């Protein structure tokens, strides 16, 4: 064995890659050969010193996204894969039976309370994968209102009425969070099985009963789930959402949004500002209402289970390493979130679109600074002006 070759054996010995027998042989040689013994000693000593170097801890922020993406992927494949492989050997009759079982268990999976699936809200698909087409009248009006808002000026108040409960909600966050998915779950049960309401359905049923009043009553718990979605920095769902940059000059985001909230919190109907649709008018009073309306619309659609979420990742794109797009049943983008590195800062940019498809609100969070909300104009971000520019397949925004 050449000496060089022996060097490799010493290396393998030091890293435990030899079989016990080989290890004994090499060890014995190292004891009898001064040069090899010294070499082995040096390798081990260097290992010992370098082994003291602890791991660099990965930042917590990323984990949530990964787990959400994993749940999304797992859900897509769970029904078929989980059950079929165990039965492939069986007769075709059995196979058919299994498909039926698969379908049922998929339903059961889909109906699991979100409490068991933390972080799923992030994807915006969990609770609302199955649009309740027949029942659940509440959400539909909410959306209609939002969409019908343009013409009659009477429409805005209900559409905008969502903020009040939000303003009132910080009291008891956790129970509400649990309740929200439960409602969504029951809607699914009803839609699909067409059977009577489960015994414990009273809270959601009650919620639906009020549906003709401001839809917000029902949405209160749901918006809390949305809040979680939005990330750690948002004690208030609306906090930090601002008009898109161009309008920013007239309406500094936070204060105006706050006023809008307190105003409508006091008296929903008295949300006297111009209709949400008045947005084209650059006048500042309209601005916060527009973002509030967009948020209410999003919450309503979400509560109604009419949104489907999609995540895309981009490998060669600094400005957008991934995006999540939530779309309504017509495939129009309602919310678009992207994360990436812009101007040297890692940011999350959330966009909400109005019923007309126009960009209604933007929130930019600086992830490097612990989730501080920064003004959208500050980083020179490129933002889509319209929902059609914010689909899952839209060009990634790779600015630096």
């Amino acid at each position, binding site marked *: 064995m050449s000496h060089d070759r022996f060097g490799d054996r010493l*290396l393998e010995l030091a890293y435990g890659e030899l079989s016990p027998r080989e290890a004994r042989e090499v060890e014995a040689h190292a004891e009898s050969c001064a040069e090899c013994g010294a070499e082995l000693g*040096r390798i081990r000593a260097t290992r010992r010193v370098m082994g*003291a*170097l*602890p791991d660099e801890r*990965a930042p917590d922020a990323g984990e949530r996204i*990964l787990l959400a993406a994993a749940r999304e992927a797992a859900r897509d494949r769970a029904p078929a894969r989980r059950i079929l492989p165990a039965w492939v050997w069986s007769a075709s009759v059995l196979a058919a039976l299994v498909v039926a079982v698969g379908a049922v268990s998929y339903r059961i999976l889909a109906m699991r309370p979100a409490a068991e699936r933390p972080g799923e809200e992030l994807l915006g698909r969990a609770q609302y994968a199955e649009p309740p087409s027949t029942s659940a009248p509440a959400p539909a009006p909410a959306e209609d209102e939002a969409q019908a808002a343009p013409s009659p000026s009477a429409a805005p108040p209900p559409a905008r009425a969502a903020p009040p409960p939000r303003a009132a909600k910080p009291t008891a966050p956790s129970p509400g969070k649990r309740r929200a998915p439960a409602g969504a779950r029951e809607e699914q049960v009803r839609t699909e099985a067409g059977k009577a309401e489960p015994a414990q359905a009273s809270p959601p049923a009650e919620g639906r009963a009020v549906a003709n009043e401001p839809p917000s009553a029902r949405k209160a718990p749901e918006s809390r789930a949305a809040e979680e979605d939005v990330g750690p920095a948002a004690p208030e769902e609306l906090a930090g959402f601002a008009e898109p940059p161009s309008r920013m000059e007239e309406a500094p985001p936070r204060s105006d949004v706050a006023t809008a909230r307190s105003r409508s919190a006091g008296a929903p109907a008295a949300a006297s500002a111009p209709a949400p649709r008045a947005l084209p008018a650059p006048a500042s009073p309209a601005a916060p209402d527009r973002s509030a309306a967009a948020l209410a619309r999003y919450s309503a659609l979400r509560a109604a289970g009419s949104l489907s979420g999609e995540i895309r990742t981009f490998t060669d794109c600094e400005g957008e390493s991934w995006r999540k797009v939530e779309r309504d049943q017509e495939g129009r983008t309602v919310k678009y979130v992207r994360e990436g590195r812009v101007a040297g800062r890692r940011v999350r940019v959330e966009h909400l679109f109005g019923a007309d498809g126009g960009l209604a609100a933007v929130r930019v969070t600086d992830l490097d600074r612990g989730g501080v909300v920064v003004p959208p104009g500050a980083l020179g971000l490129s933002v889509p002006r319209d929902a059609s520019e914010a689909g899952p397949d839209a060009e990634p925004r790779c600015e630096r």
Partner: protein
Amino acid sequence: MPAEESDERLMLRFQAGDAPAFEVLVRRHRTPVFSFLVRLTGDRARAEDLCQEVFLKVVKASRTWEERARFRTWVYAIARNLAVDEARRAAFRRAEPLDAPGGAAAHPADDPPPDAAAEAALLRPKLEAALAALPPEQREVFLLREYAGLRFAEIADVTGTPENTVKSRMRYALEALREGLAALGVGPGDAAPASAGGGAR
């Protein structure tokens, strides 16, 4: 449930639609992979992005994943290749593709260490500096063997380099580290305070 389920088993479970299995994998590997990327690229922020990309890739590829190689090897191969690709692209923007972390130079070498913990704290930047001073191809091999726990043959696969070359890079790396550490005033005995944590690898 067994306390320590193998990565491959977890991956198969995830493949079958079991999302919590992936959670275990993430908890097990994200920090070591991140660590690897930080030390390979010398850039925390880039390492953070790359690390996310690695695991999103794992999610994406999990559907077609086959147990041909160890999960660990596969993950580090993804991480390494992403980092190399990224460095190539970055080479257009930066002078040094795999540049050394700048902070490592700021070690107060002459201060007398008051106690063992402080000594370990002083030791760390020196170890980082010695590591950062390695040529990229040696550093890569050393990181994969010493911290990621890949075998030499696996490193050969991951880096697309003959196994003999991998081993000689490793020997050069160990030698350079020993000399580098000595130059920074770190001898074989200096690992004692902190080696309890690192020895487990």
